[in-house]
Each structure stands twice: as structure tokens, then as C-alpha cells.
């Protein structure tokens, strides 16, 4: 091993901070997947018939589908019969007050820095906390309700706002969209639902915090976010999981609908357990996220900081249907050790004068592989469409890989498309230069990586930008070389 590798190794071998397991009794159903299991999940959630039908149709479609193989990923065979599809903290599913919540469960979220006690909350952030399959607690619901904003768990939305759910669920990501979307539509357990009425500017950040705790379970949540005309909302999701030797499956769906002049900002700080430094364990993260800029002048912005998961397969996308609609995608994806990420976006321009911006920053260390995959599609009627794409890759060491797969389909000659790409390496020389000025290798890498990712970190809500910055440095600890 060269000196450089030794240095890199030292800096990137830090431990995953959120890897604890909480001693919470949970109720699980038997392993395996069949129509009976789906009926059981639906029954446990006391769902109406239309919901069960939705699930069963999705399941029957999924059976006919094949796992996608086009991504630049080595995905070990997944035994879908070996997964538990429903796990819930044992207690009543809905808490009237915090006193009824298992203290261990509250403690878990406290440890994660997500206090569910509204007094203690970061001011200006409402949280929906999802543990394993079930939403534990949604804070600030009453405050939001005064403005007509609905922010609750998906299960509650099915019971209390069935018309809204029926109208929009599956309208952006149809159950047949892809293999993992079909699986999710069949077995999804919970998630968040959010509706912002016409003309309302959501007064606080909304956020969903996902935690996988139980062993051998998959997590399949879905988020549905509808922003009515002239409304605004900023939404953030975060996620962590205990360290376990086996791989766990996470297959989520996020759907966003933005109506006329509505603006939605969707930020993700993804920190699922990435597996250990030898590549053992970790979450398989197969996620379908898509927004529909349905109305004229609407805007959807995606910001993501992806540092976790053993495998990430994720392409937050936007369909720019309304004329003059705008979408942005800002992404930092870090892979270290044996992590693999294939992530990017799709911008589908349909409306006139639609605009999209893509800024993707990949950082690879260790023996990891990091791919950007993006599609910019300009349809025939998208007169005057514009896209700017920038895809940068940063390498630490020489055993990792960075790849970019930009695809362009353009059917309208008036479109203006720009694409820039760079690949750079944190060199031994740069690190030594910093060392010579009294800066440790770890700090040097943190400084360089944060400088590189600044453009994306700046798009995150303030409270989370600082967290994300630290997270970047931590995820690269023990990887410097």
C-alpha cells in the first residue's frame, strides 16, 4: 500500500454514527410476499377497497416485470420472499399526545437529533417521523391546519382525505412505472402526505424523517405532495438506519404535483447505513421520485445530498408540462469504501419556454463507484425550451470510479441545451500543500470537498446545510488516500 493510500485509508475509515439499534418491541408480519400479505397489510391499516385494489393491481404488474439492469451497478440477487414487508412499533398506531409514545422511541429520535416535542423543535420545522413502516408522530399539525395545510402520515391521509389521495396518488408515478415503483405500490406501508392550498405560503419547513429499525424488514414508504395554485412549500427528508450485517431494502416513491405558479423545493439528506468498510451490510436504496410541473409558471427544485446506502438507484425527475415552468436539480453524491451510486435526473420538457438546470457533483473514494445518469428530453411542442447541465466528478484515490451518462433527446430545434462536465482528483500534492500550511489531511479533504460541493450545499435550507457539510466530511473519513 502506498503512503497515499495509507493516508486516504486513515481519513476515510470513520464509523457510521447512527448505527445503533433501539430496543423497541415491534409487531411484524411473517416474511414473504404474496396476495395474502398485501391483503394483510391493507387490513392492518384498515384501508378502503380502492386502496387494496390499487395495491393488488400493482402487485400483479410487478410479478410480470423484471428488475432493471441498465444501471452501472452490481446488484446482488434480492430474495423478495426473505423480506418482512410490515413492521410497526408495538403500540397504538396513532398517538393522541407524546405521553403515549414509547419513551424508547422518543429517545431514538432524540438521539438522531429529531426531537418530536414541539417545544424543543427547531423553530420553523414541522416533522413527520416514520419508524419502520409506521408514522410515529407529526408535529405542528395544528399550526399548519390553521392555514389549511394538510401535513400528516400517508395512512391518515387515506382515512381522512381519501378524495385527495385518490386524485393524485399514482398520477405522477404510475404503479406500472418501473419494477421498484410497482413493488412499492403493492406493499407501501406509510409515508407523508402534504397538501398546500391555493395561495398559501407554507410558514415552516416541512420534513419527514425516516428510520429503519427492525431487522430483516424492507422499508417502502411513499410521499405525496400537492402544491395548489400560487402556493409555496419547502420540504426536507432525512433518513438513517442501524448498522446490520445483512442488506436491507428501501424502495420509496415520491410524487409531487405543482399547479399554476406553485413552487416546491424538495431537499433530501440521504444517510442510510452504507455498509461497513469491507462492503458488508448496508441499505439498498431504490427510489422513484418525480415531480409534475402541471401548471403554468410552476417550479420544482430538487436538492439532494446522498452519502449513505450500499447501493443507490435514484433519479429525481421533473415533467415540465406547464408553459414557462422551471425545474432545478442540485445533487452531491458521495460514495466511499464499496458503496455504489447510480443517480441523476430526468428533465422532460413538454410546455413552451420551459427551463431546467442540472448541477451534479459526484465524489468517489475508496473502491466505490459513482455514476451520474441524466436525461434531458425536449418534446416537439416545447418551443423555446432551455437546459443547462453541469456534471462534475471528484476522485479521491485511484481505486474508485466516476462515470457520467448524459442522454439528450431533442425534438424541437428552438431548444438551447448546454452541457459541461469535469473530472478532477484530490491529489496527494494538494493534500501535502495544505499539510505544509498546518492543515491536517482530514481538514484538507473536508475543505476541498466542501468547496467543490458549495454550489449544491447552498441550495439547502440553512439549518440543514451545516449538517450536510459535516456529513460530507464524515462520510469521507477514513477514505483519504
Amino acid at each position, binding site marked *: 500500500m502506498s*503512503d*497515499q493510500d495509507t*493516508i486516504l485509508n486513515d481519513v476515510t475509515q470513520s464509523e457510521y454514527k447512527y448505527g445503533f439499534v433501539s430496543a423497541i418491541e415491534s409487531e411484524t408480519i411473517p416474511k414473504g410476499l404474496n396476495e395474502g400479505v398485501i391483503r394483510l397489510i391493507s387490513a392492518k391499516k384498515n384501508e378502503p377497497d380502492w386502496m387494496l385494489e390499487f395495491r393488488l393491481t400493482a402487485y400483479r404488474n410487478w410479478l410480470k416485470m423484471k428488475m432493471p439492469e441498465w444501471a452501472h451497478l452490481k446488484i446482488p440477487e434480492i430474495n423478495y420472499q426473505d423480506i418482512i414487508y410490515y413492521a410497526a412499533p408495538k403500540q397504538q398506531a396513532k398517538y393522541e399526545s407524546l405521553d403515549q409514545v414509547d419513551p424508547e422511541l422518543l429517545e431514538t429520535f432524540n438521539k438522531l437529533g429529531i426531537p418530536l416535542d414541539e417545544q424543543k423543535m427547531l423553530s420553523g420545522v414541522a416533522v413527520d417521523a416514520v419508524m419502520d413502516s409506521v408514522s410515529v408522530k407529526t408535529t405542528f399539525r395544528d399550526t399548519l391546519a390553521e392555514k389549511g395545510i394538510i401535513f400528516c402520515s400517508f395512512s391518515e391521509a387515506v382515512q381522512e382525505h381519501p378524495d385527495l389521495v385518490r386524485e393524485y396518488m399514482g398520477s405522477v408515478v404510475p404503479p406500472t412505472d418501473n419494477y421498484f415503483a410497482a413493488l412499492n405500490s403493492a406493499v407501501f406501508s406509510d409515508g407523508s402526505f402534504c397538501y398546500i392550498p391555493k395561495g398559501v405560503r407554507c410558514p415552516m419547513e416541512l420534513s419527514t424523517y425516516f428510520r429503519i429499525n427492525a431487522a430483516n424488514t424492507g422499508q417502502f414508504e411513499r410521499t405525496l405532495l400537492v402544491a395548489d395554485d400560487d402556493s409555496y412549500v419547502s420540504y426536507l427528508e432525512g433518513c438513517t438506519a442501524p448498522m446490520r450485517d445483512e442488506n436491507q431494502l428501501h424502495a420509496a416513491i415520491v410524487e409531487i404535483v405543482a399547479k399554476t405558479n406553485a413552487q416546491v423545493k424538495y431537499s433530501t439528506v440521504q444517510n442510510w447505513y452504507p455498509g461497513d468498510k469491507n462492503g458488508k451490510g448496508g441499505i439498498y436504496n431504490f427510489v422513484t421520485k418525480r415531480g409534475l410541473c402541471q401548471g403554468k409558471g410552476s417550479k420544482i427544485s430538487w436538492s439532494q445530498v446522498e452519502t449513505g446506502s450500499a447501493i443507490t438507484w435514484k433519479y429525481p425527475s421533473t415533467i415540465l408540462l406547464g408553459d414557462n415552468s422551471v425545474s432545478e436539480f442540485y445533487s452531491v453524491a458521495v460514495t466511499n469504501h464499496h458503496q455504489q451510486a447510480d443517480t441523476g435526473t430526468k428533465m422532460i420538457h413538454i410546455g413552451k419556454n420551459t427551463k431546467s438546470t442540472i448541477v451534479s457533483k459526484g465524489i468517489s473514494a475508496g473502491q466505490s463507484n459513482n455514476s451520474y445518469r441524466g436525461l434531458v428530453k425536449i418534446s416537439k411542442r416545447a418551443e423555446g425550451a432551455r437546459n443547462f447541465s453541469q456534471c462534475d466528478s471528484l476522485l479521491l484515490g485511484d481505486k474508485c470510479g466516476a462515470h457520467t451518462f448524459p442522454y439528450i433527446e431533442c425534438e424541437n430545434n428552438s431548444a438551447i441545451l448546454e452541457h459541461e462536465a469535469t473530472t*478532477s482528483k484530490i*491529489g*496527494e*500534492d*494538494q493534500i*501535502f*500543500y*495544505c*499539510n*505544509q*500550511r*498546518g*492543515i*491536517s*489531511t482530514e*481538514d484538507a479533504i473536508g*475543505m*476541498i470537498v*466542501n*468547496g*467543490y460541493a*458549495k454550489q449544491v450545499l447552498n441550495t439547502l435550507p440553512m439549518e440543514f446545510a451545516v449538517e450536510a457539510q459535516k456529513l460530507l466530511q464524515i462520510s469521507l473519513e477514513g477514505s483519504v488516500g
Partner: protein
Amino acid sequence: MLHIKNLKAGVDGKEILKGINLEVKPGEVHAIMGPNGSGKSTLSAVLAGNGRFTVTDGEATFNGKNLLEMAPEDRAREGLFLSFQYPVEIPGVSMVNFMKTAVNEHRKYQGLEPMSAGDFLKMLRDKKQVVEIDDRLTSRSVNEGFSGGEKKKNEIFQMAMLEPKLSILDETDSGLDIDALRIVANGVNKLKNANNATIVITHYQRLLDYIVPDVVHILYNGLIVKTGGKELALELEAKGYDWIKEAVKV
């Protein structure tokens, strides 16, 4: 302040430094000259702790501490500064952030609190004047897109900021225009005092007209083959290296 005894070092099994002896005292200026490839930059890199080179024999102490056992960042914090022959570009990291981190790391090592933003900016302003560095440069990323001469100026600016005990200037004069050479040399002189020392690596007498050395060494083929006063540099300027090479062969 710096004692080097029989220092041998190389890379990938190839020996480059073959037994260097050198002693530098506070207040002194030493010049090291020598033909291309003789090992001057290697010596500075080894002293600064560049992990690319392996030390195979010998000793080096700095302020009474074993230099060779220290991490490169600790050598810097102890007061060893290297002005690089080829300064490195670090895109995305602003000069201001870089210097602030460096200065505060030095302070931490000395048990001092981090500098306040106000004091830091004042220091930045003062030190910029030492080398008459352009304001535009300090608002950019470290060395990114700097011209060759600007990079060299920036090295001396950093030296001014960090106030080292021992500065090794590796061909800081190359790439500087005539005016810049004078400015940089004056800057170095201004920073000089009875408690610090400078090692100037150069090919040209020109620089030594400004920074007048107490001792001149000739490094050839990994060894210091001749040591003299400032007149040795003049002799080299007049005669070249052939006579040295001849003398060594014998």
C-alpha cells in the same frame, strides 16, 4: 535551529539525497545552489515531510525536536515553511478560507484561541502589503488560474501570514518579473529578524543581490559538495558548475 546529519532519502528505492549535513542558526540566511536534478527540491520536500520520499538514514532536528518523526502539519505548526517551487492549485477553496484555517491551526497548536474575523481581516490587509499582492488574488481559490509569478508572490504572502521560524524558498525567484523579484525579495527581508532563518534555493545571483546570504552551499548529486560565503555564488555565476563537477569526480 535546524540540524541535519547524514540525511539520506529517496523515492521508489532510488537514492536522491546521499548524506546531507547542514546546520542553520537563528538569524541566518543560507543559499543552496546546484545544477538541475541535484536534489534541492527533494531536500526541501523531505524536510517538510512529503510522504512521497522515504528517509533511509540520518537525522534532522528542528528546535530540538526530531523533525523526521513529525507529521507534515506539525512541522508547519512548529514553524517550518516551504515556499513551493511549483505551488499547487486547490479549486473551490478560497484563499481567505484557506489562510484562516491555516492561521487558526497554527494558533491552536500554540494554545491560542482562533482569531476573530476582524483581527484576521486586518492581518490579511497588512500582510498583503508586504508583497504588494493584488486584492483580486486573495478573493480567488488557492492558486487557481494564477500566473506563474502570481503563484510565487502568493507563497511569500502566506509566509508573511504564518510568520515561520524557518522558511525554505524553493526557486521563489523563477517566474518573477524584474519588479516582482525586487518586491518579493524586499518582502522576505522585511520578515527577517534575529529569531528566524531562511534557506534560499536559487539558480541565480540576481536574487542573492537582494537577499544576501551568510552561507552558500552547492548541492550536487545528492551531496553538499562545497560551502562558502556569499562570494561563492558570484564565482558560480562567472564559472558555471563544470569546475565543481570536475572537482567532485576526482
